[in-house]
């Protein structure tokens, strides 16, 4: 498939935003059950500003997505088919998540945090904890919707796998936690080890899952062949004409149009940039802690994710390409 930068930015930016929120909320949950100390700094900054950064990233993703549309002014129509279309579900889930995240950040920032119920020995469920739980649910819903847009097209065999969903969650989570590590360095330094540790764990898990899908896709056998495409049983079928001289939508939308060498290069770039380098930078950064190393980890991982998403598209081979072999 042709990698569209609007979609690359959309999926990587919202993944980053979702991951950042999940990191912040993880810190809150852990501190509520007292697995980690309460943040000593200003909670309003940590949760409020953290949510705001996540919101900005999601907003940027939303804007990027509009560039993908031929008629962005009609985008509101795309909420109507949620019964059948994962794209429609994503269009609903994204603003819902953003709204919920906004409230979560606002409640923290304004300090509106009444205890709703107390469970057992002084374990209080307050408003922000509840709001965070709802937002977490929506964050995972959004991950699911985004990934299912790709995973639900059964004949794009490279995408049609539960691994696609897992990859979106883990890659978004890993990059979000890396960003959160940098953020906690400024907003709640006592949490750097905790969040940074999780960022590394998630990056390793993302490596396992993305690695698994790379191997899976290598071993894939295309179900469609020139024989099934035109219905002629002969082992030698050569296309002589494809119905267009200067190319067509079919030769542009479904091919990456780049030399194989570049595709390979992008693959190894993302494998290096998304996984080992950030882990290295995070580990060294935590030992300091050094904020420049956290910045480097974030920059390298985000660049890597852009390459990863580019490769994700380039790797997918649409069955219609059989009809355009000379493209």
């Amino acid at each position, binding site marked *: *498939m042709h990698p569209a930068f609007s979609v690359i930015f959309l999926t990587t930016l919202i993944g980053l935003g979702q991951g950042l929120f999940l990191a912040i909320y993880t810190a809150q949950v852990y501190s509520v059950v007292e697995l980690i100390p309460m943040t000593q700094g200003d909670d309003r900054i940590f949760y409020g500003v953290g949510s705001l950064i996540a919101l900005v990233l999601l907003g940027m993703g939303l804007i990027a997505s509009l560039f*993908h*549309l*031929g*008629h*962005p002014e*009609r*985008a509101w*129509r*795309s*909420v*109507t*088919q949620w019964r*059948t*279309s*994962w*794209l*429609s579900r994503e*269009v609903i889930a994204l603003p819902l998540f953003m709204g919920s995240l906004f409230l979560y950040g606002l409640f923290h920032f304004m300090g509106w945090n009444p205890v709703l119920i107390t469970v057992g020995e002084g374990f209080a469920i307050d408003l922000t904890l509840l709001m965070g739980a709802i937002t977490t649910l929506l964050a995972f819903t959004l991950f699911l919707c985004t990934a299912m*847009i790709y995973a*639900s*097209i*059964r*004949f*794009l065999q490279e995408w049609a796998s539960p691994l696609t969903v897992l990859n979106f969650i883990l890659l978004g989570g890993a990059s979000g936690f890396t960003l959160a590590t940098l953020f906690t360095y400024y907003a709640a330094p006592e949490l750097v080890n905790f969040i940074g540790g999780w960022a590394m764990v998630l990056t390793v898990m993302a490596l396992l899952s993305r690695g698994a899908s790379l191997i899976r896709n290598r071993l894939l056998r295309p*179900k*469609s062949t*020139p024989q*099934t*495409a*035109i*219905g*002629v049983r*002969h082992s*030698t*079928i*050569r*296309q*002589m*004409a*494809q*119905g*267009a*001289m*200067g*190319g*067509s*939508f*079919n030769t542009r*939308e*479904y091919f990456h149009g780049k030399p194989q060498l570049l595709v390979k290069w992008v693959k190894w770039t993302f494998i290096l940039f998304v996984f080992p380098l950030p882990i290295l930078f995070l580990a060294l950064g935590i030992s300091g802690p050094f904020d420049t190393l956290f910045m480097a980890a974030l920059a390298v991982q985000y660049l890597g994710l852009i390459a990863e998403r580019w490769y994700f598209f380039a790797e997918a081979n*649409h*069955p*219609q*390409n059989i*009809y*355009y072999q000379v493209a």
Partner: protein
Amino acid sequence: MTQLALVIDLNVCVGCSGCVTSCKEWNSSGEAGPMPDQNPYRAEPTGTFFNRMQTYEIGTFPNTDTLHFPKSCMHCAEPPCVPVCPTGASYKREEDGIVLVDYDKCIGCKYCSWACPYGAREFDEQSKVMKKCTLCVDRIYDLSLPEAERQPACVISCPTSARLFGDVEDPDSEVSVKIREEGGYPLMAEWGAQPSNHYLPRRKTHIRVREEELVRADNPLKRENFTKPSKDDQSLDDIMSW
């Protein structure tokens, strides 16, 4: 239930692209238009088409066969392109099974084109909406046309009558009989889209003559000491015509 569709006889198609041109002509001015082109008269011409003619070479020289292969939307019975559309712009008509795009609703997200295994949908770079074959829905019901012309433009224009149009759900329709009796098949059946358009395969006509049919044991010409009868001899007619 009705499912209108095309049946394309690959044995008859000569690859003249008449269907491609007449489709473009009709639909440029019809309800489904326009079908804009970019760079039509310069290098790298490109544009929107609902139907494309492709050519394949089967086998290795000198044992090759040329296959001309027109491809347009299959108006699938289970179209994977329809449920993915977020706006409802893509839909399948209940009454005749035609799959259409509502250009006023389409946001041009191109998701449906990813979800068509056949590459039958083409994005119109000028109107910024998705376009595809309409089976000439604006012709086939037009009562102001003579009945014989209430057919898709490609079907009427085909000089070899390689394209047939009709209801593939009606077992007695011309198209159904053709599919049943002449080995009609759908493309890429493996994806379960149940395409309604069918293709009739290339059929080679062979005359089966056995050796003993050529040299018959009782062939009178092979009789020994056969002499040509003279004109005065009795002929078969002389005996038979009494």
